[in-house]
């Protein structure tokens, strides 16, 4: 599956949950969930059991809370739908490196700023999370009380959040300068270095999925 164009993988991952909600429950959702699990577990072509386990562990709390709120009858249809959604996206994330998606976006003529936003965000989030953890440790070393009454905790929250956010905002100028130096100005277009091949059959498959979902939706609503 990894050889498929990123847009095809993305369309598949979106179409499966859409079908899970459109098709009559529980069999429609059971079918889409089976397809999603097959995508995760097909030998040699898929991410494999470890990723499938991640999907199942992510879905498990939803089954529990659905059972708690609605009993077995209410749990099964929604549980299958949510599990389809989770399994499809876990599969997508496992099979599609963000850099390949960005390359496909650039090759498809998307503005380079859109591709930048996506890739820069994916890099910024773990970096700032790590800094947040360092700040928490540093403030605790300085004797910051993070436990106690609500007012004590809110004061601690302020002491943790303020330096984190202010330091992040100070970085914006440096980032902007770096972007301008590299010629990344809004509206600029780039040529993709290694655009993923997009065969006509994949384009047909994507359109068939989109139109199929739309037709089924109209059929269900009518």
């Amino acid at each position, binding site marked *: 599956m990894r050889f498929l164009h990123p847009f095809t993988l993305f369309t598949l991952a979106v179409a499966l949950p859409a079908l899970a909600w459109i098709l009559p429950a529980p069999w429609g959702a059971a079918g889409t969930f089976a397809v999603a699990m097959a995508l995760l577990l097909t030998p040699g072509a898929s991410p494999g059991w470890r990723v499938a386990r991640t999907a199942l562990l992510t879905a498990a709390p939803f089954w529990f809370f659905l059972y708690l*709120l*609605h009993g077995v009858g209410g749990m099964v249809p929604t549980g299958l739908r949510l599990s389809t959604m989770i399994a499809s996206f876990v599969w997508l994330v496992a099979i599609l490196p963000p850099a390949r998606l960005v390359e496909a976006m650039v090759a498809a003529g998307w503005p380079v700023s859109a591709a930048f*936003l996506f890739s820069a965000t994916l890099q910024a989030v773990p970096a700032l999370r790590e800094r947040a953890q360092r700040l928490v440790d540093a403030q605790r070393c300085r004797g910051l009380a*993070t436990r106690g009454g609500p007012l004590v905790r809110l004061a601690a929250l302020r002491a943790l*959040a303020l330096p984190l956010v202010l330091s992040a905002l100070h970085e914006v100028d440096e980032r902007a300068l770096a*972007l301008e130096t590299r010629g990344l100005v809004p509206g600029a277009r780039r040529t993709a270095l290694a655009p993923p091949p997009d065969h006509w059959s994949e384009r047909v498959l994507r359109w068939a999925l989109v139109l199929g979902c739309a037709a089924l939706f109209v059929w269900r609503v009518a």
Partner: protein
Amino acid sequence: MSVRLLALIPVAVAINLALSAAVDAVGLPLFLDTTGTILTTALAGPVVGILTGVLTSTVNSLRNPTFWPFVAIQIIVALYAWLAARRGWFRSLRTAVPAGLVLGVIASLTSTPISYFIFKCATTGGIALTTKLGQLLGLSDLGSCFFGSFVSDFGDKAVTFALVTTILHALPRRTAARFPLALRAVGRA
């Protein structure tokens, strides 16, 4: 959109998603996952705020796709923060906290139908348990779903608004002046 605003958006998304570490450290039942959205809207207007919100939901969905349907909340938060900035509600905590409480009501009214129709109210642990409490109190399914959302959103948005106001006031004037709307939002323009 200027390059500075383009550079601001990924940072703001990271703020939305990294503040959970601070929340975990103090053990308060808060999300603070709209802080960056509200902050960028106050600094640079609704378009930047909406882009920040949508990107936050997208990146969060890569970890857990059940966040994606709630993208509408991020958009509504950005639009409301735009109104708050224009009306000067970030000028002091006395106006910011009530404005945040109102946003809490709006956010829970918006998230209730999403939570009810897509998740049957079984979203995150705390909200699902509060929804169960609503059921035990005799509320209808939709009523308990709103009760769960309301309890989680009401305080969260008030604290978020207070935090953004504190950040805006703590920004050095030179830094604030680099963003088109920051000084006006805190009444220093």
